[in-house]
């Protein structure tokens, strides 16, 4: 029976390495996905994810459980991403694949989905990543935490150390910009219904 995060954290604080590695296994993909969407670079996102777990391991005994373990990891990750962005003085990038591999896509297609639909879906995803890369860091982070990690407004506010209303405003403004960017790129609601 899988243990809860809290149980694994308690065991980890007692020096149980296996328990901590279970937490790593459970959270490595969400943490990597967060770093990737904030930074936009695969290798750097992997480095950030590694460093996140390294720092968490070193500091696990000091974790008091006031926030969820996942929120604690998210905070470490976002701090590392922020450091990377400031250090590199670089805006997030949208990594576009060299080309769309039709054969690879065929493996991802659902039975009811044609290759043309799948190619269109990939291109839409790329357009979204480009639109997101244009957002200010605060708006982009708010949207990522809400859309892809399902945090509540309050959890985002706690994580970003800002008022609840600020989170909502950032979300609204960010979504509006993304919507306009997609429209200017020729993407609209009809694209998905085709």
């Amino acid at each position: 029976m899988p243990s809860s995060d809290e149980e694994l954290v308690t065991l980890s604080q007692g020096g149980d390495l296996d328990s901590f590695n279970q937490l790593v296994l459970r959270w490595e993909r969400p943490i990597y996905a967060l770093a990737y969407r904030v930074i936009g670079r695969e290798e750097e996102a992997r480095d950030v994810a590694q460093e996140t777990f390294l720092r968490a391991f070193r500091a696990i005994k000091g974790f008091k459980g006031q926030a969820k373990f996942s929120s604690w990891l998210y905070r470490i990750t976002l701090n590392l991403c922020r450091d990377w962005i400031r250090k590199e003085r670089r805006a997030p990038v949208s990594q576009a694949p060299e080309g769309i591999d039709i054969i690879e896509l065929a493996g991802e297609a659902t039975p009811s989905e044609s290759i043309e639909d799948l190619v269109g879906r990939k291109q839409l995803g790329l357009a979204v990543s480009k639109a997101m890369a244009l957002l200010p860091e605060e708006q982009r982070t708010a949207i990522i935490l809400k859309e892809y990690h399902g945090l509540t407004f309050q959890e985002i506010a706690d994580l970003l150390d800002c008022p609840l209303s600020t989170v909502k405003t950032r979300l609204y403004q960010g979504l509006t910009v993304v919507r306009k960017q997609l429209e200017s790129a020729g993407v609209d609601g009809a694209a998905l219904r085709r």
Partner: protein
Amino acid sequence: MCESKELIVGFLYDELTSGERKELQAHLAACSECSVELEGLRSTRTHLALWSPPLPDLGFRVISGSSAPAPALPRRTRLAPIFAFAAAAVVVLAAAAAIANVEIRYGSEGLLVRTGWAGQSPLAPAQAQGNASGGEVRNVNAPAPATDPAALAELDRRLRTIEVSMTRESSVQLASSQARMPDAELLRQVRQMLSDAQSQQKTAFAHQILQVVRDVQQQHASDIALVQQGLDQYQGMTNAEIAQSRDMFNQWIRAAARQEK
């Protein structure tokens, strides 16, 4: 646009109280601009769902070393000490192999070091021991081992020093399944490097042999030309002698004919 952005966002993500929801729904029924705005944001959310990150094989795991904190090294260096160790080992071993043509095998019997040009022999340590007891097979063309035991001991000492220093640096290692190199893989790569070094040496040796063969062939062709020239001279001298003999014979015949008259 009405001042209802926060309510629209709350409605969009289903984080409104029942009172707020009723309030917004009443507003939307009367405000087409906000209704269009809400529909547009919903559509944007649908598009956002299409952005997927890549799915690399992460396989992170924490490996505990000593309890001392890790030094503030660059991340890549800290997370991949085995790579650094492997690189150092390969450089040192490749240099030694280039000098002494050393073959190193590591198995259950321990470390076996062979030197010289007998590297083709795929003898396992156990077989080598059997040969030693029952008569060893040697390559008679192999030169005497060129490895100084003192040099090998020095090499071993330096490798151990590197290993110890790397171990100290990595008190806590976080390695991915791709970043951590298994010992078997490390050994395979070291062997590959040694094999490459041997191949390079053998290629150079083959080039030298080929050059010698070419030199011999050139010398042979040159000798044949000299012999031919000598034969031609000899042939020329013989013809002259024949002509001289013929002249002398003719003169003798003429002289004999005069005497008969």
